[in-house]
Structure formats: C-alpha cells, structure tokens
C-alpha cells in the first residue's frame, strides 16, 4: 500500500539536495481534487501464460485520478500486468489469472463481468501508434459510434473535444477527412489517445506510448499526460525512468513478475526502500 501523496510532497523538501538521484525529483504539479481512492485493486493477483507465471501475486492499490508509472527490466511483466487490467490478455489463448483484480469494487475477472463494457471504461494506448486506416474523424468517432452515437452534430462535438483534450485539434482541424495514416508518428499517438478519450473512459492505460516516437513528440505526449492527470486515472508503462519521474505520482517497480516496490514516485526514486529498486534506478542492472 503506497503512502499518501501529501506525505511525499512534504518529504520532498527535506530531500531536495541528496546526491545522484536528484535528477529524478518530480516537477511541481497542480493539485488533484477528488481523487486518491483505490480505483484498481490487485489482491494476490497472478497472471500465467500456460504454466509460466509472468506476474506473481501482486498486491496493489492504484489510486484514482493520479498517474501511476510501471517500470522494470524488459520481460518483467509490465505489459502483462497492464493488459490484464482491461482484459486485453483474453486475446492470448493460454493466458489465465488467479487471485483478484478489482475495478471500482467489481471483480474484473468475475463470471458475469462484461469485458466489452469494461474496456469502454478502461481505455488503452499501445506502444506503436495504431490508428485505423480510416479518416481522422472516423478514427475518433469509431468508439462513440460503436456505443450508439449516430447524430452527426453530436459526433462532431465529441471529435473536437477529444482532439482538443489530446492537444491535436489545432494540427488536424482542417483535415479531419484525411486518412489518419498520413499523420506523423507523434500525431498518430495523440490521435490514439484522443480516440480512447472519445469513449469517455475512467482509466487510461499507456503501454510505452513514446518508445516509437522522437523526443519532441515524446515531450508532447508527456505534456498531454500532465493535462489529463486529475481527470483520468492513468497508468503508464515505461522503460525510461526519467519519464516515469517526470509524469507520474506513483511508481511500481516490477522485477521478474514480482512487484518489488510501489511508492510515491519522489520517494521511490530518491529513497528507494528495496536494494533491487535502488540498483535498478541507479543503473546497476536493466
């Protein structure tokens, strides 16, 4: 169970000049109002590929409206854990789970859970931008249409709002009918964010959303995450620890499927409790 954010913010000050890990000190952020409740709760939650236990008995509370980063060496189960939250792993034939994963107090893997409804509430943005080979407009309108919005005016409203939220509106407002594949990689990724926002999710899952992008486009996505923070619960998988420290309030460190440490970002990066965490963030292994 991570510490409350208030606790970190006060501690941050007396930590502000302690050597090598200073680069990970998070920037000042706006206050989040009305968040902080457990949104996703994992209890002894394991994920298996066949016999192989890729995520091992994780216990964690993900707090609403804050940004949680997931870090850890490649193959440690970051994606597996993230994709379990909106049941994207259902697509993999031999993947199954034990333990419990709760979303808003309901069992994600419960017998009567409608995974379609679940995915509407828990949106996902993938590593490589994956717009549909359709127009920009149709990409954004895809979700709303799916959920029954037919009126053109309403759709136009949703498209504009979503694109504005994703900070893409100014760049594409004059070519909404053009194919989305004509956009740059960074624009495509923001389009994917906008597409996800258009179905009004509560949670946004981002799996290494910037690893296919250049630094400028990466900065834009990070800015965007800051914009969305406070409105959505955001979970971001990243292998870039500076990115994690820049954008997140909490960080989970996974190692070989085990959640080693889960703490407020400032604390995890500056005063890690676990030796493994410290070794990893100081670059002794990766």
């Amino acid at each position, binding site marked *: 169970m991570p510490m409350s954010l208030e606790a970190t913010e006060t501690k941050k000050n007396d930590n502000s000049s302690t050597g090598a890990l200073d680069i990970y000190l998070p920037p000042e952020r706006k206050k989040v109002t009305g968040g902080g409740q457990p949104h996703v709760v994992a209890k002894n939650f394991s994920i298996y590929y066949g016999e192989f236990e890729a995520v091992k008995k994780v216990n964690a509370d993900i707090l609403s409206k804050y940004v949680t980063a997931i870090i850890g060496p490649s193959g440690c189960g970051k994606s597996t854990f993230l994709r379990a939250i909106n049941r994207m792993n259902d697509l993999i034939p031999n993947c199954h789970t034990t333990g419990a994963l709760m979303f808003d107090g309901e069992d994600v893997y419960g017998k009567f859970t409608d995974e*379609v409804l679940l*995915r509407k509430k828990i*949106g996902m943005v993938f590593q490589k931008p994956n717009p549909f*080979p359709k127009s920009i407009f149709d990409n954004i309108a*895809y*979700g709303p249409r*799916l959920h029954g919005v037919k009126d053109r005016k309403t759709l136009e409203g949703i498209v504009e709002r979503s694109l504005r939220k994703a900070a893409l509106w100014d760049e594409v407002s004059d070519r909404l009918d053009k*194919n989305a594949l004509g956009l740059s990689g960074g624009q495509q990724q923001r389009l994917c964010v906008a597409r996800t926002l258009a179905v009004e999710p509560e949670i946004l899952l981002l799996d290494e959303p910037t690893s296919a992008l250049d630094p400028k486009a990466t900065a834009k996505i990070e800015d965007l995450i800051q914009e969305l923070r406070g409105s959505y619960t955001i979970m971001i998988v990243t292998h870039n620890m500076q990115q994690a420290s820049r954008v997140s309030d909490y960080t989970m460190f996974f190692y070989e499927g085990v959640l080693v440490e889960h703490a407020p970002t400032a604390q995890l990066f500056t005063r890690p409790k676990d030796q493994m965490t410290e070794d990893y963030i100081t670059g002794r292994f990766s």
Partner: protein
Amino acid sequence: MNLGTRKLLDHSFTALGFGSIIIMGLALLVVLFPIATKGVGAFVFKGTIEHRKLLLSEFHRGDPKEIVKEETETNRYRQKVFDMLAAFDQELDQMDYEQQSKYRSSYDQVKTSLRTLLGPLPGDSEPALTRFQYGQTRWDKAEEKLHGLLYEQKWDYSNPDVIAKPYDVSRAAGFAGTSLVKLFPYVEENLDKMMMPEWTFYWGFFTESSLDAHFFGGIWPEIQGTIFLAIGAMLFAFPLGVIAAIYFTEYARDGFLTSMLRSANSTLAGVPSIVFGLFGLAFFINTLHVSESKSVLAGSLTLAIMILPTIIRAAEEAILAVPKTYKEASLGLGSTKWNTIVTVILPAALPGILTGGVISLGRAAGETAPIIFTAAVSVGAAIGLGDVLTSPTPALSWNIYNLASEHEAAAEIRHVQYGMVLALVTVVLLLNLSAVILRARISKKLKG
C-alpha cells in the same frame, strides 16, 4: 562451401531466374499473339457484298439503297458467269451421252464451288439453311474458295510407303475445247468485282446472336452466359468463403473438427474440375433438383463449390495479415468481437480478400468441365436475367471446345472460334481488371 563456389551458385541462380522469367514472357507472347491477331480477324475483316446482304436481311442493318446499288454492280460481273454457265448447259445438251458424262461430275463441282462463292445460282430453289443462302461473306474465305474452283485436289498415291500427298489439277484443262474454259480466268480476274470486299469492323460479333450454328452472326449469348456463370458463382462462393474464413481465423478453436475442416478445404482445392462437373450434375440437379436439367443456377453452384477453397484460403490469409494492433485498438475501445471483425478487420483485409476473388472469378469464367453437365449448351439464344434459374446457356469456354471438336463445319468457321478465345480472354481480363481497380482503390483509401 567456399566463397568462390557460393558466388558462382548465386550468379547461376540469378541467371536461372532471369531465364525463366524471359521464357515465361516469351511463352505468354507466343500464346497471346496469335490469340490477339487471329481473334481480331473474327470482327475486323474484308467483308463482301454477301456479308452486307446478310446483315441487311437478317439483322436489318446497313443502308438498303447502297446495298441494292452494290448488288446491281456486282451482278453485272456475275451475270457473265451465269451466261457462261447457260452457254455450257446448251453445249452439254448437244453432246452425246458419253461426252456428257465425261464433264458431268466435274461440272457439278464447278457449280458447287460457284455456289459457295457467290450464293445460289439462277434457277436454284431457295436453300433452307442460311449458310447456303449466301456466298462467302469474308474475302479471305472467298479467296480460299476460289482456289477450290480453279483447281481440283487429287491425291498422289504413287509411293505406297508414305501418306498420300494432295496436288492441284487445273479444272480449266479438264474443260479444254469447250466454252467453259473462259469461265476460270474470268472468275479469277473479276472475283473482287463480283464480291466488292471492303474492310469491315463487324461489332455485331460481340452483340448479336449466332445465326445457323455460328456460321454467321455473333457470340453475344456465349459472352453473356460466361458473365452470368462467373458472377453467379461469385455470388454464392464469395460471401460463403469469407464467412468460412472468418470462422477459421477468428472463431474456430484448434481441435479435431477444425483440422478436419481445414484439410477438407485443402483437398477440395485439388479436386479435378471434371469431378466438380459430375458432382454438380449428381448433387444439384439429380438430388436437389435446383432445376429440371442444366441451368445457369446449377452451373453457378457447381463453379462456386469449385472456387470456394481458393476464396477461403485467400480470405484467411488476408485476415491473418491484418495487424493485430487494429484488433486490439478496436477491442480496447469497448468493441465487441463481431463489431471489430466487421468494422476493422474485414475492411483492412478487403484488398487481399478481393485478390482471391479475382483469381477465382477468372477461373470460374474459364473452366469448361464443371459446366458441361450442369449449365452449358452448344448453340442457343441469349437468355434473360429472369431465366437463369431454369435455363441453360451457351458459354465461351464450352463453345470454344464445341466449335473445335464437334461442330459439323469446324474448318469453315475457325475465325469464330478464334474470336471466342479472344472474347474469353478479354472477358476474364476485364473482370480481373475491374476487380484490380476496385482493389487498388480500396488499398489507396486504406493507406491514405
């Protein structure tokens, strides 16, 4: 293996590859060139006055006044021939029996030759068959027939060890000393004035029905039948194949039944087409009674079964080639599986699916064996769209075979056969071309 041998091998493989491509190109040229040139001859040729007369009276085309004028003009030259015949008839009357019989059979042959060249002679009764009501409609044929008038073909049996050789004997020599001798050089010299050959573009070849078992007229019923059959087959096979492919790729679980179905599909792809033809007869017509006997419906169904495996395979591959990320994105937005398939996967797979469709369409249009027993008739009128459920139809593939092998006067109408081959190749090309254009458009839309 050392570097030298490896390089040598590499080079020889490259050369081999190039060589085979060039050979393929040449083979294509060798096949397509005669098809094109001889096929064009079916509708671009020097047409004679007989052709124009035929068009006027049988198809009501052409300018009657002009044709009457031409007819009078040609008749002026023909009259001399008729006069010579009349003169010789009189001469014959005055000969004794022995002399008469010396000329009789040869004279009959001359008259027959003249009839095939110019049509019925004066005093003949109106022939029942259209093919005998007119002379040669094509100048190239007329020149061939002229040879038959001028020379009698005899066979040289002198060497019993080899097959006999034909040789020409001048007919004029046979009539030496009679008035008929003058007829041969006269016809040879004035045939063009008697026939008035003119370059003709006979577009009716593609739009008209055949007259007197393809002696005259066009091949529209065959073209239409081919299109009906091919499109009919696609109507059944395409949706079915795509649905089956969706099932295989998205729904089927790996298991005994699935692997059985898959191997059944592969096996079906290798079955000889004649087997499909017999199956179609036995199953669709004799068992299911989809129609009383041959019909476009039964033929389409049979062709559909034949092309189904190709369509399923191509569609399966196209669906599997759709990036998994599209599917994830759609599902991630809260889409159902079916919705994802319809709105994302199928549109993205469409170009590939259409490729399979194109290949199958060409095959359905070109196959002969499956329709022999289920849909094709040799000569028939074009059927209406309303008759496809019950009526058989002529079709290019089957009629090409029929004209080549079974037609009573195959040698007389080779040009029709070539024309049909060209038409078939063109129909397949056009069907393919439109599908390819459609495909390219969709691809372009997808790529942005």
